[in-house]
């Protein structure tokens, strides 16, 4: 699903976000990317979203070489991704239903498809009763579940979550992680960049630890290494 080969990102100010990083993630895997601030987690997420381009090396996602991706093709690439951010990034003037439906409108789904699919996805994330609520009327956990519903409504093969529990209390964070695990069980590849040690230790998934833009460790069923 993801094949990063010797990728380096040097920012305009000369700082290296990642440095000669190589990483292979198979279809259907659940992977934590961990590391302290400045370790390269965010750079890696931004590279996968094609928000920025690698200075050297190549990044191939679902068979698509991101360095060869033209600007006009970027929206179509991003439709293959589900994205969840720490700050939820919901549209404030739209209801929960509309926020999720919005991702389907972009791919020009019919009204019938939207009316059929959105309730199913809201049911999956436990928000059926909040469909008509606006983001400001929801708790942090509910907002993140809305963002998750939006991310998976078009059934993307890859879900990228950048600090998805950063703004949530431990109980709610755990609920979100359980949901991510459910989504992964349905065949979606899930990549989670996080600081949340307790969650990483308890989930017992593959853990890729970064420091100074390079991979320090890559363990199946790993935990959060305190040394990073």
């Amino acid at each position: 699903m993801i094949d990063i080969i010797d990728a380096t990102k040097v920012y305009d100010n000369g700082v290296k976000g990642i440095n000669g990083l190589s990483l292979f993630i198979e279809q259907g895997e659940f992977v934590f990317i961990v590391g302290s601030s400045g370790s390269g987690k965010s750079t890696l997420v931004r590279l996968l979203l094609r928000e920025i381009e690698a200075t050297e090396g190549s990044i191939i996602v679902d068979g698509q070489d991101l360095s060869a991706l033209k600007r006009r093709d970027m929206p179509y690439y991003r439709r293959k991704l589900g994205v969840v951010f720490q700050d939820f990034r919901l549209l404030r003037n739209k209801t929960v239903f509309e926020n999720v439906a919005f991702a389907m409108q972009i791919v020009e789904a019919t009204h019938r498809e939207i009316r059929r699919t959105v309730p199913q996805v809201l049911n999956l994330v436990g928000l059926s009763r909040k469909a008509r609520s606006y983001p400001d009327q929801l708790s942090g956990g509910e907002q993140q579940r809305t963002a998750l519903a939006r991310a998976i409504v078009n059934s993307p093969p890859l879900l990228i979550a950048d600090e998805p529990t950063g703004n949530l209390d431990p109980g709610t964070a755990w609920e979100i992680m359980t949901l991510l695990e459910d989504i992964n069980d349905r065949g979606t590849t899930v990549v989670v960049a996080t600081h949340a040690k307790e969650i990483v230790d308890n989930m017992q998934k593959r853990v890729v630890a970064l420091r100074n833009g390079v991979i320090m460790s890559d363990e199946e069923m790993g935990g959060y290494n305190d040394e990073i």
Partner: protein
Amino acid sequence: MKFRTLSYYLREAARNLIKNRLMSVASILTVASCILIVSVFYCLAANVDFFLGQLEESIQVSVFLRDDVSVEGVQELNSRIHAIPHVVNVVYVSPDEAFEDIKAGMGNPALFDGLSGKDVLPRSFDVEIDDIRNQPDVINALESLSADGVENIRHSQELADGVRVFSDLLRVVCVVLIIILGVISIVIIINTIRITVNARKTEINIMKYVGATDWFIRWPFVVEGVLIGFLGGLIPSVACWFLYGYAVGAIPELIPLISFVKFRPGYDIFMYLLPFDLLLGMFIGIIGSVFSVRKHLKV
């Protein structure tokens, strides 16, 4: 474009216009103010041009004939002058007719008692030309008829040149002013729409991450710009229509000195001004929207 996508754009544009109604009204009034200035200037320019046209028509060339030209010779000359390119009309003026005109113009006809036209005035033609710019060519052609009986040609080249230069200058000034005001309008509207777009930059950012194409994001803003521009063009057109009607009636009463001036008919102005204002408004709206959204699309 699919119908449901089009209906999405229209719904989003209407929803945004209503939701940001204060900014929408501000944008509409900004466009309307700029187009009103252009429209008022257009009305003025159209009337000055109309007045110059009337002045041009009144500038005639008089061709005086020698006394020895026969009646047949006069008819032959009439035909030959008619055949000169750019000559619109030729009117034969007998000495008596010319004399009556002079008497009528002097105010005291008693001074001319005992005189007749034949005693003092030659026969002549009043020659009307299609465009004052063609006067020199026509004069040259008339001068070549001197062997056929043309004795003298009277024309006012200086006045003709003056009117022509002023008329050309007015057109240039008009175009330049419309361009300047158009650019100012676009700059103002870009800044006004940019404020509404800035308020929605997070929304645009989210749309980009969810996989929206640039045009999917841009279209609702463009539709919004078109609606703002349409209303911003319609308001000054309607305002100008009423103002013009009022001005045409009121100016001759307020300033009797210029009561002889004829105004261009309202329909003659507004059949061009209304579509021009609407198109200008929508063009400004579209350009403003596209430029305002552009920088937020680079995510």
